[in-house]
């Protein structure tokens, strides 16, 4: 028996060596030997904002990878082909697959995909990982100025514009006016600070807690959604993730106070304990069922007013998330951009597409058909006259107080580290001080690891 195992292992080894010996690893994996080439680049990448109407682009086909699971976006693309003569192949996937697909394609040095979605947290990786074209000097300054600050900053990393701003998004405070009334609170006056938030929460809890209602619900499942909410608290207390030397400082000052406030809320018994298992959709579901009086969530609207899904149609309002002290309000930004892949063979056509995306026509269509909020600032005043709900301007107000997650290349892993520690602190396993200290150390060692080698 022993002999067999040894021989078996030997044979596997033999296959490995003889079958494929000598494959040079640096080229075999599509390694990034030109990884530092990005810095030398600038306006020299041959792309020109004014060259997008070049007739030679007609008849080219570009491939776009983005979130589109119901096919609505795909239909809008026909208009682009009509306008420019450039054909579009759409790869519509679910949000959770976008990042994997982009990076797998980049690893394989594949030129199959030309334009890709870029969530704000990926900008650093797209830059450092040599995935997307740096558009800082391609998109003229006066065009850049037309975007909402929220969406423009979300598409930038360290001064580099890595994609065209695609839409604006952030978290907002939603509250149930009817529950506010029942608890004896003014339904038109949501809490302005987290102190007030806690005070109001306690009132709601004491009046309505007996009915199984909680004052607030949050997306505090151990995942990105938890980091997002933490960013809002950190911002409200004037904190920052890193100092000027890229040293993590979120374990002190506003970052620490923010987490302490989250823990205080959790311990006060006013937060639905299920929050620790919820993502944003779960929170919205609980809000629609009338089980929580307040929630922090992304742009919701039609769902909440659909009587088939919602028990609170017409009974809710939305406004600014609380701030504290000097800070009026702070909310995590979720705006996204669209980037051009470095490996694309149709970059100019892709740029034409980006230009179209940033145009009023597309932005208006997306807003009307999918309720996606424009990245172009001027559209907010223009569209608000026909917006009966008044949501457009309310959301726009919050966008001004957006806080970005630190979208450096290591962010995805930092977020995993941080959300694990936040979750522990919320569960009461270790103090906020201790947990943030550990997270800061881990983030720093990760930082050191990737820069030293």
């Amino acid at each position, binding site marked *: *028996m*022993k002999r*067999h*195992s040894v021989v078996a292992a030997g044979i596997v080894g033999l*296959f*490995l060596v003889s*079958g*494929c010996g000598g*494959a040079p*690893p*640096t080229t*075999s*994996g599509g*390694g*990034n*030997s030109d*990884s*530092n080439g*990005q810095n030398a680049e600038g306006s020299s990448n041959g792309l020109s904002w004014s060259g997008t109407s070049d007739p030679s682009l007609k008849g080219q086909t570009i491939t776009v990878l983005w979130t589109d699971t119901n096919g609505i976006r795909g239909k809008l693309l026909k208009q682009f082909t009509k306008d420019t003569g450039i054909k579009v192949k759409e790869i519509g996937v679910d949000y959770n697959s976008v*990042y*994997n697909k982009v*990076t*797998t394609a*980049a*690893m394989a040095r594949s030129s199959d995909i030309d334009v890709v979605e870029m969530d704000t947290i990926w900008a650093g*990786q797209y830059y*450092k*990982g*040599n*995935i997307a074209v740096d558009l800082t000097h391609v998109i003229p300054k006066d065009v850049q100025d037309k975007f909402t600050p929220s969406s423009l900053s979300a598409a930038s990393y360290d001064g580099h514009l890595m994609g065209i701003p695609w839409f604006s998004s952030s978290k907002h405070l939603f509250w149930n006016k009817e529950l506010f009334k029942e608890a004896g609170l003014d339904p038109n006056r949501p809490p302005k600070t987290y102190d007030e938030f806690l005070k109001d929460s306690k009132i709601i809890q004491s009046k309505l807690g007996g009915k199984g209602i909680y004052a607030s619900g949050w997306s505090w*499942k*151990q*995942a*990105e959604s938890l980091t997002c909410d933490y960013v809002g608290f950190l911002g409200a207390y004037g904190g920052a993730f890193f100092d000027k030397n890229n040293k993590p400082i979120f374990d002190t000052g506003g970052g620490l106070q923010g987490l302490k406030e989250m823990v205080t809320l959790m311990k006060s018994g006013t937060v639905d*304990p*299920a*929050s*620790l*298992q919820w993502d944003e959709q*779960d929170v919205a579901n*609980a809000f629609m069922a009338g*089980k929580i009086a307040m929630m922090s969530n992304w742009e919701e609207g039609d769902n909440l007013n659909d009587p088939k899904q919602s028990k609170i149609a017409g009974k809710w309002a939305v406004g600014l998330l609380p701030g504290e002290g000097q800070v009026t309000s702070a909310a995590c930004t979720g705006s996204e951009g669209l980037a051009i892949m470095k490996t694309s063979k149709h970059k100019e056509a892709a740029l034409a597409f980006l230009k179209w995306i940033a145009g009023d026509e597309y932005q208006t269509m997306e807003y009307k058909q999918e309720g996606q909020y424009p990245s172009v600032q001027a559209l907010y005043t223009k569209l608000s006259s026909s917006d009966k709900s008044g949501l457009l301007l309310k959301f726009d107000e919050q966008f001004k107080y957006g806080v970005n997650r630190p979208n450096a*290349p*290591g962010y*995805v*892993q930092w977020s*995993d580290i941080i*959300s*694990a520690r936040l*979750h*522990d602190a919320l*569960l009461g*396993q270790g103090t906020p001080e201790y947990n943030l200290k550990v997270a800061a150390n881990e983030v720093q060692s990760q930082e050191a690891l*990737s*820069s030293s*080698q």
Partner: protein
Amino acid sequence: MKKFYITQRHKDVGFALLLILPTVLVLLRIFVYPIYQSAVWSFFHYNLMDGSPVQFIGWQNYKDVLTSVAFWLATQRTVYFTVLTVLFELVLGFFSALLLNQHFRGRTFFRAIIIIPWALLTLVNGLLWDWIYQPGFGLFTVLLHGLHILSPQQNPVWLANSSSIMNFVSVADIWKMTPFMTLILLAGMQAIPEELYEAVAIDGAGFWNKLIHVTIPQLMPSILVAIVLRIMGAFRVYDILTVFTGDPQTSITYLTFNYAFRYFYLGKASAMAWISTIFILILIVIYIRVLKKNLDQA
């Protein structure tokens, strides 16, 4: 005569090679090269997303992985999950098989029904159990309230922390994979001759005696096969966990996947994959040796 023997043998070998050729070609072409590649990567610093250069670093990735807290925590939880699920699946599967091996009216119906969980899509199984564990309105909480095990005020958050998540994930996996165990053991039980039971029954053997003296010894080969297949499956738990939690330290595969496809530490991820592979390989070799000994004695 001797000459004939040799040609016959040659013919046999040629024939065998011809039959094996398609498989070997496919495996060599599709499987071996990527395996080789991942082995090579495991010796390189190969971070895709931070712009650092690719370079040979010897065993450093292996050292890093073996000294990282995350890896051992994930290993510990994976082993816990594997032991817990395989044990429960074995016991439950064994008794289910025992029941379904008897003669009774409607046996076909029962045998067909129990396969349902196994045939359910793994992803759907994960989402379904996540739904069941929803606090407040999920089946689990509603049942416990209905049975007055929980008072109406109590509303625990089942999937709040990663250690307890392992238990809840185990339940979901046990539900889905017990039928698989049942099928293999039922197959084994069918091969046990009834005379063996009748023989010990004459000596007055009851349920436990029959079990210990006939069923278990006769079933040993099937049990070992079932165990090894399930260990290999359970050790790779991934899909369900991604639904339940964003914490990659809940299983080795989850951690490896995140290292490879979220953080893009391809070198480290490859090293991690090889370490866990070697771990399973050792388990399998031990299994094979035990099995061999077992068969030699039989």
